């Protein structure tokens, strides 16, 4: 037992922080907002610099082209980047690339990995369907075998970044006769393939997501991840890679810090109010409770152990605290706390208000918190199913 972060981890945190301060310009942030995290000209340069640092793959095994570092470095990278709201690799880096590296053919690795590293290729994730959300295995987008490949028909929803991506990582039912979890394959589909239609959906937090439609889309055999019909385990594997930093504390703490700074500068009388100070003290307690669950989960994953209950606890705790911390911060700030990010008078670009509106997605996304609670009960506590 030793709860200290060893010096080399703290040195890494400092290195990431100085890198952030070098690159975090208003222009880059504006571009990121506009493109919802997809690479534009500035972020390509930024990603190039990030790639040179070697952080995107530092925790991968050496034989997969990584640096074999302890995944706690990834945790520190995520926490530090998240505090400053800096992009550090979307699902293309955290899910698609590791899956290609682990499951892909030599041809697929050669075709996609270099392009991902230099930012030319970006993937949108095509998992959810109108009738397959948390119950993902009931997906119905189907692939029919045709000469040299597959003919795909169906519909996906929440295909975030689709309009800015070169490819879609598409979960497809390739064997309609197999059981629910079997008979699914992962197909790599070019977004400009004939038959792919992308329709934007506006979300309440200001972010766009997309619906994607597939009408007789041809996907060549070489773009099907092996094993054929064995896609479910790839999907699960991909989700696992997100989990070391799945629910950061830092971006929650940032709301707190932004609020306190605002009060110090603009409403010192509120900060002097003992009732307000007590509320802030409560938030400090809640942040530490969440930090405990987030680190506990990261340490387990870093050791290569699998405890789904711990990941579920971190996910629930972070997503529900996001709502509580932002609603309380808005209440304390008052009317100014309600100004949206497209109002120049908003607090820190409307960060708190935006996080408030964005909080629902984290509660229901990635497996609803209700499902997570059942996972804790059955798999962590051993309650009867």
């Amino acid at each position, binding site marked *: 037992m030793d*709860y200290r972060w060893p010096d080399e981890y703290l040195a890494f945190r400092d290195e990431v922080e100085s890198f952030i301060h070098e690159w975090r310009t208003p222009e880059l942030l504006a571009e990121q907002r506009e493109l919802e995290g997809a690479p534009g000209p500035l972020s390509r340069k930024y990603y190039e610099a990030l790639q040179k640092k070697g952080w995107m793959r530092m925790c991968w095994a050496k034989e997969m082209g990584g640096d074999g570092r302890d995944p706690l470095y990834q945790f520190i990278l995520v926490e530090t980047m998240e505090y400053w709201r800096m992009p550090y690799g979307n699902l293309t880096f955290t899910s698609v690339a590791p899956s290609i590296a682990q499951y892909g053919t030599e041809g697929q690795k050669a075709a996609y990995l270099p392009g991902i590293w230099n930012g030319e290729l970006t993937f949108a994730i095509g998992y959810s369907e109108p009738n397959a959300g948390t119950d993902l295995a009931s997906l119905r987008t189907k692939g029919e075998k045709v000469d040299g490949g597959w003919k795909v028909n169906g519909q996906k929803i929440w295909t975030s970044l689709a309009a800015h991506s070169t490819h879609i990582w598409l979960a497809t039912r390739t064997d309609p006769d197999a059981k629910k979890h079997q008979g699914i394959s992962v197909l790599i589909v070019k977004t400009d393939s004939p038959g792919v239609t992308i329709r934007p959906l506006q979300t309440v937090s200001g972010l766009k997501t997309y619906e994607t439609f597939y009408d007789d889309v041809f996907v060549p055999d070489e773009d099907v991840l092996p094993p054929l019909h064995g896609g479910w385990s790839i999907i699960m594997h991909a989700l696992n890679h997100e989990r070391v930093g799945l629910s950061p504390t830092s971006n929650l*703490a940032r709301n707190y810090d932004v609020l306190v700074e605002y009060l110090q500068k603009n409403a010192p009388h509120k900060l002097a109010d*003992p009732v307000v100070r007590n509320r*802030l003290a409560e938030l400090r*307690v809640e942040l530490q409770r969440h*930090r405990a*669950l987030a680190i506990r989960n990261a340490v387990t994953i870093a050791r290569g152990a699998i405890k789904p209950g711990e990941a579920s*606890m971190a996910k629930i705790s972070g997503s529900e605290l996001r709502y509580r911390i932002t609603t309380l911060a808005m209440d304390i700030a008052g009317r100014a706390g309600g100004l949206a990010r497209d109002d120049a008078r908003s607090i820190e670009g409307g960060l708190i208000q935006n996080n408030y509106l964005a909080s629902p997605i984290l509660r229901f996304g990635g497996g609803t918190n209700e499902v997570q609670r059942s996972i804790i009960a059955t798999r962590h*506590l051993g*309650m009867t199913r």
Partner: protein
Amino acid sequence: MNPDLSETQSLLQTTMRQYLETEIPFDRVREHEEKRVADAELWKAMAGQGWLGIPLPETVGGGGAGLVEAGIFVHELARRAVVVPGAEVMTAAVMLARHADGDESEILAALVDGNAIVVPAHLEAADDLEKVDAAVDAEGRLAGAKHYVDYADFATHHLVTARGTEGLGLYLVERSAPGVSTEALRSTGRTPQAIVTYRDVPARRVAGEAAVGQLIDLARTFASTQILACMEVSLEQTVAYTNVRVQFGQPLAAFQAVQHHAANMCMHVESSRFLVYELLDALEDGRASSDDAALVKASLSRAVPEVTMLGHQLHGGQGLIEENDLYFFTIRGKDRALAWGSAEECLAILARDVETPPRWL
């Protein structure tokens, strides 16, 4: 960053747990609780096991271990709800061993053997941990009253916070000295507690003002450790009960609403475990501040009613009957939530500095 017990620490945990579960049936706990007297026999047995000196130097016969190990000791005793001053004596022992001005080897050796039992006596009628009126005069005579003193009568000595000619400090007082009288209290936790009055009692100064803050931090941390144990067992008993209790043709545990209550209990337990042991580990080498100890106490004091009351909700009437063991952890947990600073008192401490950015790594 390693939040798990070492092999030696796990061994201590397992050994104590097995010993207490085998040797101390809950009915024995009920007996002592009813009479509100400490389990002297268990105390003697623990001295025999060498557990009373866990964090004390080997030179006095102690185990030479740290606060994490002392925490495991407190944790395991609280898991069995036994009526002994584990947390109190550990607090006093660590203060005497690490923060005393002079050499306290003699009394420490007696503590290890179980011949001396020292408990802190700090809080006064004002119920304010920062307000001390008890006074020691130039002749070294103590006058004053201490309230809510845990195990005051089982102790051989009290470690009393008082104001002397050299300022605030900690004083050692013999329980049997003439002029010491006690008045028993009936607390929620059903463990022995008393108001102690000191009239012209000889008192020996053992530590100065800085030690008073350290005493509170340490006692507060051990109280948090006790709360953790109460939540843990309440959850374990609830899971076990809902797995076997059948209604509407299926175990309660199979109902999602029941599972979700249990998951909420579990999140409190798991975050609390991390926070308590992180604090013990940090106190060991002086990394923890008083704010850290207050934060953890606020967190656990808020969590324990949530957890134990959900435990009752899922047990139904069965959990309210005193023949069931659940209630031990409900009452002890709430009692410790009030001890050494309630959630409200600890939040007030945190509220003094809300400007420092919270930790996130």
